[in-house]
């Protein structure tokens, strides 16, 4: 029953994909040379107009480009011409650095806030103000103070990953079931053991939800951040290919961004499943 349902769902997914690709293919197919066009305008528009070729690449063009990129992802032919694998690698490395820094700050501080109602109320106004700031708004300040574009991108990732993790950790820790804490109290469990063997496992599912939200936001933000700072990374690659008017490359990059984002999310979902306990 369950298996046949997932089989059917997979089938429907394939059908939707096929319909989408067909429509895309038909919509971008050449329309034939256009006669009667103002020659000046035709010259301006180049091949698009004169040979009836659509400006949008079709699925076959994208597939060919994607194959090209995937078969040689790590080449370096100068600062502006590197394989998509290298660009993605830069982005992942920046996200990883900023994200791990955020984990190191958010989880201990979140613990503190969750355990202490005083700290919770004291820090609340700061969190409330900092949380809604778009991470990119920090960019000029980061560039000015850090004076390094790569580090600034990492800082922006750090800032945007921080809040969901901090808030979820504090919430998870503050809402550990009273009865579990009472068990620890009646057993005279020490502070350290209580934190690591009662509160942490009890709050872990909530903390991981925060971590999963954070990695999603971080991956959204890195593309925008790299468009701003330039140099390397998948965001820069997209911007660069736009400047080259290579829409095929842009679409390919979009696909790759989506795939990597999905992998990151699924990896954290798997960890979350490990620490979730049924009640």
């Amino acid at each position: 029953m369950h298996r046949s349902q997932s089989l059917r769902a997979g089938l429907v997914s394939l059908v939707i994909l096929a319909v989408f690709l067909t429509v895309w293919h038909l919509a971008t197919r050449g329309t034939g040379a256009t006669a009667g066009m103002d020659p000046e305008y035709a010259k301006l528009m180049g091949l698009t107009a004169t040979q009836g070729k659509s400006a949008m690449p079709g699925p076959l063009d994208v597939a060919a480009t994607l194959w090209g990129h995937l078969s040689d992802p790590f080449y370096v032919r100068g600062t502006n011409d590197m394989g998509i694998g290298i660009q993605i690698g830069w982005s992942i490395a920046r996200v990883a650095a900023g994200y791990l820094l955020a984990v190191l700050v958010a989880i201990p501080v979140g613990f503190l806030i969750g355990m202490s109602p005083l700290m919770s109320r004291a820090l609340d106004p700061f969190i409330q103000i900092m949380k809604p700031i778009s991470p990119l708004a920090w960019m000029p300040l980061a560039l000015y103070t850090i004076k390094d574009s790569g580090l600034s991108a990492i800082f922006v990732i750090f800032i945007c990953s921080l809040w969901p993790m901090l808030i979820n950790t504090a919430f998870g820790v503050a809402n550990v079931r009273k009865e579990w804490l009472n068990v620890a109290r009646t057993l005279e469990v020490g502070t350290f053991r209580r934190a690591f063997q009662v509160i942490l496992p009890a709050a872990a599912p909530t903390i991981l939800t925060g971590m999963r939200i954070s990695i999603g936001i971080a991956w959204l933000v890195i593309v925008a951040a790299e468009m701003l700072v330039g140099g390397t990374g998948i965001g820069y690659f997209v911007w660069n290919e736009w400047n080259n008017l290579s829409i095929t490359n842009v679409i390919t990059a979009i696909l790759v961004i989506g795939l990597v984002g999905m992998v990151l999310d699924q990896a954290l979902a798997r960890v979350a499943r490990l620490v979730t306990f049924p009640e």
Partner: protein
Amino acid sequence: MTEKPLISIEGIARRYPAPGRQTTTIFENLWLPIRRGEFVCMIGHSGCGKTTVLNILAGLDAPSDGEVIVDGKAISGPSLDRAVIFQSHALLPWRTVLGNVAFAVKSRWPKRAKEAIEEQARRFIELVGLGGSERKRPAELSGGMKQRVGIARALSIEPKILLMDEPFSALDALTRGTLQDEVRRICLDTGQTTFMITHDVDEAIYLADRIVLMTNGPGARIAEIVENPLPRERSRIDLHRHPHYYALRNHLIDFLVTRSRTLRDQPADGHDPRHPPVVRPSAAPELVVTTPGDAATLPLAAAHKH
């Protein structure tokens, strides 16, 4: 009573702030000694403060007035000497049965080797009849099995005092009966001092040596203490065949139905909170063992050792 009681509740009260700078008194001036090896049940209507009393005994809550003396020392917080069996079993869901019990054992003897800790945990899991389920998680257990794990966890630290808050109220009658048998057997075998809260009159009759009756709240007090006239060797199945059974049961029911309210509004004449009346219902007309300030009833009481 020459022997010093193991637990002595001395004039405790619990008050909560109420709107308008007032306070509500849940109960006050509660006095109760509990002897070593005794099984005491507390009965009273919902909201009269039974759980609060138990939490104070456990050290999870502090009284607004008075204090609780255990073994000659006023308690100042939770202690491994006083194990609690929670109404909601309160197992850690991310740990297995063995993990839950071993967590308690490890808390009691932190320096013990892992094998010795697991050995002790297994012994008590076996004792409550859960041998073979050590690797299961609480979510895989039935309500009765979870409560057994809670009992094993509490007993595994070999506490001086066992505190139970309606431990069986969420279970079906059959499971409840079996668990009552087990708890009674274990407590008798080990001479465990036990304080238990219950709503179930028959449970109290079967398990308790003495039954403490609380009046309704707010402002609850101990109305009287009922001594169980049934012999120590009693079985759950033919409890009702005992000549004193109905006298005892009627006395308790009568208290819950009417006197728990009337005694709050109008305390009995000469009611002394330090020495609430001790009653021993029996098939013969009710026997009042001691009523302070009322010497007339004492000739009957002379038959007892008080």
